[in-house]
Every structure is written in C-alpha cells, then in structure tokens.
C-alpha cells in the first residue's frame, strides 16, 4: 500500500500550511513566503512559525519524491501482464479497495501543489490562475479514473461468492479517494476566477461529493452492523483503519463548504448552511476519533509500539 505513504506525507505538508493560512493575517488569497510579515513578527512568532515552515518544506519534498518513485513502480507493475486484473478482481476482505489509494494520493498532490508548493515557489503562486486549466484537466483524469476503478471494484464486492462479513474499515479507502477528489475539485471551484472552469469543476465535484457521501453512509451502517454482529473487534493490524473515517468526514465537510459557498449566491433555494456543514463534519470526526481511541485503547497500550508495519497504520497519520 505504498501510495498511502505519499498520501500521508501530503496530508502532513498541508497541516502547517493551513495553520499559517488561517493563523497569519496576510490579505487575500493563499499565504506564501513573501506574504508573511517577517519584519513585524515577535521572537515567539518566529519560534512558532519557523518549525512549521521547515516541516512543510520537508513533507512537501517528501510527498513529491514518494509520488514520483511510486508512479515509476506503478508503471512497471502495470506493464506486468495480468497484474492489474489479478489484483482488482480479488475482493476477499475488500483488499482491492487499496487500488483507490493511488487516486487519493494523486488528488492530494494537486492540493500540495497549490498550497505548500505555491508557498515556497513564487512561480506557482503568481501563476495560480493560469494553472487552473491544467489543474482542471488533471482533476478530470482523476475523476474518470476514480469512477472507472470504482465501477470495476463494485462489481467484485457484490459478486455471488464474496463473504462480505469479512469486510473491514479498509473498505473505506475508495470513499477517501472520493473525498480527496472532491477536495481537489472544490479547490478549483474556490480558487479559479474563470466561470467555465468553476462550473465544470463544481458539477464534477457535486457528483463525487454526493455519491461519496451516500456511499460512506451505506458502508458505515454496513460495517458497524457486521462488526456489532461479530461482537468482537477485527485483528490488531486492521484496527487503525477505524481512523479512516476522520479524514473522509473532514474532507467531505470542507469540499461541501466550498461548493455551497459557490452555489448559494446563484440559487433561489436555500442550501444547508456552509459553516454548519464544515463544523458538523468536524464535530463528527471528534466524536468518532474519541470513540475509536476508547474502543482500541489496548492496541495503543500493548501492541502498536512493537508491532510490524501494516498499511492501515497510515490511517493514524
């Protein structure tokens, strides 16, 4: 599950970016190195922000480095006859959902490109509008790939001989791809000033947002009920997958917030309040996170430190 590593690195690169974006008064648009008021900052502010900037730089480089390396390995793997078919057609324990991690990670790449990379590279931040059309094309490729892979995987999950009681929260990897593609699309809607680009991105985003959200609800109900019926938690290596719900809920909330802000002025009907959407999604993540921490506390107390690597551990990041 290599692409989960680049996805996690991208997520960590975005964290300090968002902190700086919303914590420092920098005028309109995305924050950049040049917009930070270095001259008026106190020593404490330097001590607070400089480590964040260093972390953002390290994880941005790591994200692009890992993405490039994994894409190279992916191309080699796809060139192996039967490799793709042999993987996507095996739904046991929903392991083929892992293929959507590629789409999720590449959607994260778009966000890292606009935000953290734009922070350090003035060419990116000053040409952001000119980059919106290439961004839309990239988003379109991811959108089509997401739907094609999803349809292919869906057919296997609901096949006759599949034991769906063995499905676990790793099954949510495809929903996280929907959430990240929605975030990338809503990013174009929020950043672009070109009406055609905004409209195209908004329509595509609404499709992934609505389908992804309904799919999330279905899977949550299904997984919670099968886990409750089994009356026991999954094996230790699978437990961190419970945390996958957290980024998914946050990303859907943020994407919905941006889309509603774009749509509301153009409609006569009232959409749900955008602030309520984002606050609601964050409230859900807090409740889910605390419940999960309580539920799998033994995993952290006795297992995690000495455990071998398991792909769901990226869910913790």
């Amino acid at each position, binding site marked *: 599950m290599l692409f989960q590593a680049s996805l996690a690195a991208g997520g*960590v690169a975005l964290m300090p970016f968002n902190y700086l974006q919303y914590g420092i008064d920098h005028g309109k648009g995305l924050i950049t190195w040049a917009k930070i008021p270095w001259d008026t900052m106190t020593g404490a502010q330097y001590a607070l922000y400089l480590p964040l900037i260093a972390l953002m730089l390290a994880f941005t480089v790591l994200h692009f480095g890992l993405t490039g390396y*994994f894409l190279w390995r992916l191309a080699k793997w796809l060139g192996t006859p039967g490799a793709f078919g042999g993987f996507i057609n095996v739904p046991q324990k929903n392991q083929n959902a892992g293929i959507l991690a590629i789409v999720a990670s590449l959607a994260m790449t778009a966000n890292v490109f606009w935000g953290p990379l734009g922070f350090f590279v003035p060419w990116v931040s000053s040409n952001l509008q000119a980059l919106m059309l290439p961004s839309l094309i990239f988003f379109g490729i991811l959108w089509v790939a997401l739907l094609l892979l999803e349809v292919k995987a869906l057919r296997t999950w609901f096949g006759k001989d599949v034991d769906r009681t063995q499905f676990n929260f790793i099954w949510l990897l495809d929903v996280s791809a929907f959430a990240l593609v929605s975030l990338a699309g809503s990013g174009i809607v929020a950043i672009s000033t070109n009406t055609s680009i905004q409209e195209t991105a908004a329509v595509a985003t609404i499709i992934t947002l609505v389908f992804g959200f309904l799919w999330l609800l279905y899977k949550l109900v299904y997984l919670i009920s099968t886990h409750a019926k089994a009356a026991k938690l999954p094996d230790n290596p699978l437990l961190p997958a419970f945390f996958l719900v957290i980024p998914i809920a946050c990303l859907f909330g943020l994407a919905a917030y941006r889309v509603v802000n774009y749509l509301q002025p153009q409609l006569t009907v009232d959409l749900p309040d955008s602030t309520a959407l984002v606050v609601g999604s964050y409230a859900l993540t807090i409740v889910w996170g605390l419940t999960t921490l309580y539920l799998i506390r033994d995993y952290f107390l006795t297992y995690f430190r000495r455990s071998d690597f398991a792909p769901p551990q990226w869910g913790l*990041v």
Partner: protein
Amino acid sequence: MFAFFAQYRGISFLNYISILLAVVMFGFVMSKFLRAYSVVDEVAVVPF
C-alpha cells in the same frame, strides 16, 4: 471558522500540537514501513 479558532490560543495550541503529533506518528509508521520494505520488496507484489 478557522480564523475564529485561530483567535483562541488554547485551540490554536491544540492545532499546533496535533501537527507535531502527526509528524511523530508519521515518523513512527514510516520507520516501520521502511523496515518492512527492506525485508520484503512489497512493490514486487502490490505497488500501492
């Protein structure tokens, strides 16, 4: 909402800590990942 949160030092502090925690967790999982990767080239089987 974020600007609202950023005005409150307690929440801002929690945000800051959560970033550091994510970095530590990333380091933890990455070190496990690299150990596993050096033993078995997982890429040869499944590259994602």
